[in-house]
């Protein structure tokens, strides 16, 4: 049985910062889900704030590398989806406040 939890994965991904806005991907609300199977293989489902973001490939690589740092993790797959489209209501309150959206 795998001991890695969804919280562990989110915590690992929260070390990845978007260099344009300066917030981590978790507080931006860009991470939609993370699933872990019995062999500790992880699948992260996420989105990006803009389609056509020039950092697309790099951000997914950073997410993968961040999760791979967890002890005992198996394969890591990162899928970027566009539905549902990201919007500011998905972000944490501190992000909303800092960006001036609310």
């Amino acid at each position, binding site marked *: 049985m795998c001991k890695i939890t969804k919280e562990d994965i989110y915590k690992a991904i929260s070390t990845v910062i978007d260099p*344009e*806005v300066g917030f981590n991907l978790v507080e931006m609300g860009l991470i939609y889900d993370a699933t872990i199977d019995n062999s500790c293989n992880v699948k992260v489902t996420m989105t990006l704030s803009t389609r056509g973001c020039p*950092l*697309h*490939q790099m951000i997914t690589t950073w997410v993968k590398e*961040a999760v791979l740092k967890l002890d005992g993790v198996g394969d890591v797959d990162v899928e*970027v989806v566009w539905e549902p489209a990201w919007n500011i209501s998905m972000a944490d309150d501190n992000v909303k406040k800092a*960006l*001036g*959206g609310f």
Partner: protein
Amino acid sequence: MFAISKDFAPPLKLIAPFFKIGVTFYLIAIISLMFFNSSFSYQEMQIAGWIHLFLLGFVMVIIFGAMAQLIPVVLEVGHAVVDLYYVILPLLAIGTAIMVFGFWIEPYIISYGGVLVLTSMVIFALEAFATLKKAKIDTITVKTVAVSNTFLLFGIVTGFILALGLGGVVSVDVTNILKAHLYLVLGGFVLLTIMGISLTLIPMFSLAHGFSDRAIKIGFNLVSIGVLAVAIGSIFNIIALQYLGYLLTLIGVGFYIYQIYLIYLLRVRKELDIWAKSMIFGFSSLILSLILGIVYFLPNMSESWLHSSMWFFILGFIGFLINGHLYKIVPFLVWFERFSPLVGKERVPMLHEMYPKEEATAMFWYSAIGIFLGGIGLLIEHDFLFKSGVSLIIVGAIFLYISMVRMLNYGK
């Protein structure tokens, strides 16, 4: 699902020279304004020289450099032959310098510079078309790239005919061909490119989502038809068709402004950084330019209304849209090249830390106030006011140049 690969991104050493040379041409163009008066005619060779210096040396060089980076982002494919950009820049820069020298001092060399510029633009347009063929997506921005490059090719052809006409090689109505050439390049390529690219960049930088793009589609179609109407009307001297084209372009730009307003309302990021301030000033200048342009078409209005309208369009709108985006694009390129490999290993700077804030603020205020004063000076044909405005823009251009050098050297 599609991912932009790092392999698609052109190296900094390819793109940085476009920005360095573009900003240098901007500085030279602004300084040279001191030698002009507030009253002039469009057909003066000195004016034609300045227009080419600014539009080719600054606008085109920066747009071409930005497109080297943005085409893969917008089309979501790599360039067909990215190394061609190493050839495009020297041809365009040297060709422009020769043309401007020709317009100002030795007219017989204009066509030599024109051939170099022509070659550079043909290579750019063909490379863009080859890249477009690889694209699998079909957005308004992709259509804009296709249509604007087609207009660019026609603009180049009319420019070449114009050069031959001025050199006495062929017999053409220079005034009409000049009108078609100006409209095809300025409206067909520069305006449509800005319209298309800004629909990608402005929502990206302001974090605006969920807006309808109906207004930009209508605006895009109207401007495209308008440019075609003016070009055909000018070449065949059909006045009614030219006026129909002007009207369609004006309405199309109105739809574009409305689209930007919709994006503005839905933006999440409300910080007034140098980019946001530049966009506000740029679009305010565009609205002012439209108003001045409409007034010019009323009966018995002086040509100074048109001069002032073009001033706010070229320096206020195009200038600020380009310069404002430089503070986003250049730090990104430098960050991508020098800092992205260090992510996760050491602290890397945020993009907003990579441009000099004080120089950027100085660039904004000196340029904005200068453009406003200069535009009023042109409108009332007041030399002192015009030159006072130009003096301030020169100071702004120096701060832009310093900013560019600092951004490109960040982390070196």
